[in-house]
């Protein structure tokens, strides 16, 4: 027994691996940017090889099409900016919640109920009230319904600690169901679509996309200030770090959760309103275009910081717009190629978070 007294050396626990992993304390910003850039370029290369391989074309053409689809004409640039702006809005609805570790997967549902209430006002009151009043009503009701949809899970989370991930997810399906119910009960002609309306359309300014872009850029800047410099923002980040610390320093956690989710719902409601009122009101159960989920990825990619969100939303809309051109150019008829490529790029960027949080240290050979 006496002979076994030598101390156990740490590296031996790693079963002979020539390296071990340590957590980084802080990482210089240039290193972080390099890691992200490598991941994104890697993801793009991978997807170019896959697309070109499927189509039997030159992988370099992939990049030509990608940029053509996103920046080809002035209109294409504006369309991409519009996508990015709406995505910014959807992400903005999630970021405050994510900052306090409230996993709000309900963006789709919150936007959809807002769309539904805006649309229904136009549908039923379109001929009865003046246009300005109609738009005002649509605006108010969208925001209100977005708030209601996010407030329900928030109240249960605050008072009973109900699992918000699944609750908000189920609220998406309930919202979809309600839209389908309204379609089935309002449209008696048996048509599977809501008619497109003209009443309740926002006045066209410039190219009809600039105002939307401007609204969400301003909103993002507001959110940056709100989260970084206001007392509310501080409380959100403390609750996110540790609920117990928040309680200890006298923050009313319930109040913070409810207040933040009201803000979230209001922003989601605004996005819903714009989705309906920007062009002539039309509605389907996927009017939000799954932005609620895409926004989860963009928010996370942006590390929940509103300023970085500009980059991540721009990047995702660049990929989506560019990919439809790639698909056309390569003659790929299968639409799902876009989600495959987006998924692959997500994987690369997710994997790179490892290299940001951890460092691989190679062990020096023993006896040297």
């Amino acid at each position: 027994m006496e002979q076994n007294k030598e101390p156990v050396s740490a590296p031996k626990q790693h079963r002979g691996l020539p390296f071990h992993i340590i957590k980084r304390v802080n990482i210089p910003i240039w290193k972080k940017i390099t890691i992200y850039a490598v991941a994104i370029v890697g993801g793009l290369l991978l997807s170019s090889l896959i697309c070109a391989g499927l189509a039997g074309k030159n992988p370099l053409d992939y990049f030509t099409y990608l940029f053509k689809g996103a920046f080809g004409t002035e209109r294409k640039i504006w369309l991409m900016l519009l996508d990015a702006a709406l995505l910014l809005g959807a992400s903005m609805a999630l970021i405050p919640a994510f900052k306090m570790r409230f996993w709000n997967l309900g963006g789709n549902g919150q936007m959809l109920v807002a769309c539904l209430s805006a649309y229904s006002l136009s549908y039923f009151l379109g001929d009865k009230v003046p246009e300005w009043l109609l738009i005002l009503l649509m605006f108010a009701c969208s925001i209100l319904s977005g708030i209601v949809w996010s407030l329900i899970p928030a109240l249960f989370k605050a008072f009973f600690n109900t699992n918000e991930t699944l609750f908000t997810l189920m609220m998406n399906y309930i919202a979809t169901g309600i839209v389908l119910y309204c379609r089935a009960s309002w449209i008696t002609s048996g048509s599977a679509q809501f008619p497109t309306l003209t009443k309740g359309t926002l006045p066209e300014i410039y190219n009809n996309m600039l105002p939307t872009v401007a609204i969400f850029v301003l909103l993002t800047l507001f959110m940056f200030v709100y989260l970084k410099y206001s007392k509310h923002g501080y409380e959100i980040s403390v609750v996110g770090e540790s609920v117990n610390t928040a309680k200890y320093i006298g923050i009313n956690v319930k109040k913070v959760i409810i207040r933040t989710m009201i803000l979230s719902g209001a922003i989601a409601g605004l996005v819903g309103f714009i989705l309906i009122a920007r062009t002539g009101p039309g509605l389907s159960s996927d009017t939000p275009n799954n932005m609620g989920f895409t926004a989860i990825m963009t928010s996370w990619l942006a590390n929940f910081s509103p300023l970085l969100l500009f980059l991540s939303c721009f990047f995702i809309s660049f990929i989506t717009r560019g990919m439809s051109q790639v698909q056309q150019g390569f003659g790929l008829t299968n639409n799902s190629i876009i989600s495959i490529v987006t998924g692959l790029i997500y994987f690369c960027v997710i994997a790179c978070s490892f290299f940001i949080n951890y460092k691989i240290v190679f062990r020096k050979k023993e006896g040297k």
Partner: protein
Amino acid sequence: MLTNFLIGAIALGVVLLYGCLGETLMEKAGQLNLGIPGIMCMGTAGGCFGAAQYMNGLAAAEDAAWLPLILISICFSILFSVLTGLIYAFLTVTLRCNQNITGLAITTFGTGLSQFIMDPVYVPRDRFGAASALFAKGFVNDPDANGVLRIFFSHGVFVYLAIALAVLFAYVLKRTRLGLHLSAVGESPAVADAVGINVTAYKYGAILIGSAVAGFGGLFYTMDYLKGSWENASTIEAFGWLAIALVIFTLWRPNLSIFGSILFGALLIAAFVLGGSSSQKELLKLLPYVITVLVLVFTSIRNKKENQPPAHLGLNYFREER
């Protein structure tokens, strides 16, 4: 009518049961996998790919035999869903990335890729009628047989496999050393590590086996329940989310999952059986989601200690951070 209702409820329930069993296993190991919808889609695509390969390798669709068809489908289904699960496992266990985000990315990727594979170019479905008849073949196939016999014995093999797996999982989790070790990994990986349990191996094992099992759900739904037809991945995706909710509903207990999933199956099918106007049907289709919400609220209000999720659910384990 009641007989058909129950048969349908059991069949739809089994789709959810597979997803629920897979997710339960992973959650027991502390991995909250929101990629289950994507994995279920991939399992479907794999199984259908295998079935198509087998069916089109034959001279005529009538030559198809039960055993090779089922085995080939199962093998391909496992291959596809395990590979998808492996991406999740590598990202979350080895690279310790955020589990929620990784899961959502898996769902985006899996639904997209399965939709891609299910293109008739890769998975020609002209012989799926014959294949699905074999999938759905039960012990009692006569539609005029005794109702009770039909409820219990008229299903395809995947229904019995699901129930057998549920019983097996319940036994392993509750009564064996393996199951206790797995729970230890989910409750407190640091303690498990200290007593010499290989945390990484258990997590990988749970994720890969869970993925394989979850994948069967989609395969069963497409080949047996839908008789080999495929529209798009979104229905199976919705089942995947319900399956995740079902894990909470059944309190991480595979034996309760059997009854929970059949109950959900009954709710899902109620809209079609009860009938009514099209708008009433849409309202009835909401039932499973509303009930899930009520169950979430109810279990959280009761807040009993033994009904709580594994303590380390959703958190990654890094040994040097203890």
